[in-house]
């Protein structure tokens, strides 16, 4: 494979292949930042991959009190799924179990989408007849009595069909330490890009997968070409100097948000250099036939 080298870091001439997804966003607020993050982490927990979690979710951005609807600390949470039905189901389950339950929380629409997704208009039934509907300023809220006062929840949020899931960078390093340093730095930079989430733990995934397996019932299995211990045994993508590979997966509200995040990640990794971080950067694809969106690394270089 043809490669270019920038600041000692080899960049593969390849592309990340990503898919169209359905996405939504909500704004969660709470009395303090601590309880914003508790609600958000709970709601976006076990939401790393649609393969096994039903949706992919994460915190897009933390919001200061001046930028939230009710003047309290908050954050914007994004959810991604493969179908509108699944997205709706996951949204209600997660807000109902993790945000409604969290002390002092409130929940607002985070996206003006093409279509509405139900939020408070379903969760209101928790109020058992004591729920109160309020419409003002062109918005519709539900007030649901709970043990610490009221859970205020906007009736609906928006859906976008233009979201992109599965943008990615593969960081190949000489050691696990270098791989982690590179991954942490890249994830931090990429997480700052508005409109994207990195659904895996800390934004980083170490078990990159391929489609299918030798076992009939397993839909995704280890990507042996990038597993260093299988080098020499399988058709490996790794050279002799690579001993650890980590991946960063990106879901974005739009195509351009994903590209911006990948570019931010590449910039950071190149700035870090091969001595401290990744020696080589690649990206995962399926030959270009499955996903609608292709992100060529060389087009994203600084």
């Amino acid at each position, binding site marked *: 494979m043809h490669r270019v080298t920038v600041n000692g870091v080899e960049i593969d001439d390849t592309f990340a292949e990503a898919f169209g997804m359905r996405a939504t966003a909500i704004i969660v607020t709470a009395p303090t930042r601590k309880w914003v993050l508790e609600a958000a982490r709970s709601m976006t927990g076990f939401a790393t991959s649609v393969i096994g979690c039903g949706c992919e979710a994460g915190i897009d951005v933390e919001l200061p009190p001046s930028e939230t609807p009710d003047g309290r600390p908050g954050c914007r949470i994004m959810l991604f799924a493969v179908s509108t039905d699944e997205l709706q189901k996951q949204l209600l389950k997660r807000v109902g179990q993790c945000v409604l339950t969290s002390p002092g929380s409130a929940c607002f629409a985070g996206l003006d989408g093409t279509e509405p997704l139900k939020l408070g208009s379903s969760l209101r039934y928790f109020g058992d007849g004591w729920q*109160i509907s309020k419409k003002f300023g062109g918005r519709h809220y539900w007030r649901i009595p709970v043990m610490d*006062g*009221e859970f205020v929840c906007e009736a609906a949020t928006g859906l976008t069909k233009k979201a992109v899931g599965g943008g990615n960078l593969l960081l190949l390093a000489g050691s696990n330490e270098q791989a982690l340093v590179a991954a942490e730095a890249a994830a931090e930079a990429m997480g700052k890009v508005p409109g994207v989430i990195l659904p895996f733990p800390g934004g980083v995934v170490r078990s990159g997968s391929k489609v299918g397996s030798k076992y009939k019932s397993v839909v995704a299995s280890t990507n042996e070409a990038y597993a260093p211990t299988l080098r020499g045994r399988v058709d490996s993508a790794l050279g002799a100097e690579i001993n650890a590979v980590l991946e960063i997966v990106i879901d974005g509200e739009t195509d351009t948000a994903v590209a911006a995040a990948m570019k931010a990640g590449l910039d950071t990794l190149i700035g870090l250099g091969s001595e401290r971080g990744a020696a080589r950067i690649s990206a995962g694809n399926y030959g270009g036939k499955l996903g609608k969106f292709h992100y060529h690394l060389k087009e994203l270089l600084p």
Partner: protein
Amino acid sequence: MTSLTFTLVSEPPERLDLSPLTPQGLAGLSRRTIEQTRLGLSKRGARVGDLFRLSGEDAESIVFAGGSVRFDRLGAGMTEGAIRVTGDAGAQAGRKMSGGSLTIEGSAGPHAGSGMTGGRLDIHGDAGDFAGGPFTGEMRGMNGGVLVIRGRAGDQAGDRMRRGLIAVGGGCGDYAGSRMIAGTLAIAGGVGHLPGYLMRRGSILLDRPPATLSPSFTGSGAVESVFASLMDRYLIAENIFDKPLLTGAAGRYCGDNAVLGKGEILYSLR
């Protein structure tokens, strides 16, 4: 295009029904036709041309230069556009309006915004009794939209209100929010006797505790209310009030338990 302006020549000799003079009612009409529109309610039957001097041509934006307490049914049934009066209006201003904006720079008479379902009615002065309320025999009052009274509202403001928002800056008379079905009534400047009398649902927001209250209301503590802060921020953002009505924890009564009892009176504890 300049606003279609009706300049009042002299005080009208009789009460007028101004409901024909709305943006949707005048759209496409010639000046001659407009001038022949009958407004007077007595046998005299004054026409537009007898009372006003017309200028401008944009019927989407109507201005009455000069007002009168005899201007009844001003903007009644309007659905779009804007009407502004530089003086007072009579009874039933903006009754059953469903859209657009109606601004009264003076005061309005009784039944202002009666049964309105949309749009915004802004009264810079005072309003008479039954602001937003229904006529006798009607089942419900205001059913949507925003009614702002910067001065004082008379008795029974928001009577039988079902939806929408009424904001009063200079206090209300007795029985504010009587028989409310739902909706929001925000009042700065105090209220008279028995606010929320026989309210079923809905919210009455006050900048101070009510002086008298029907015994069929029960206290329900002082709970921090996200709804109250949302409403405060909305009222300030829309330039309806210049400071928050309620901040942080608000006192709350629920009632009226003589009827359904799902209504609330939230009041500032400051």
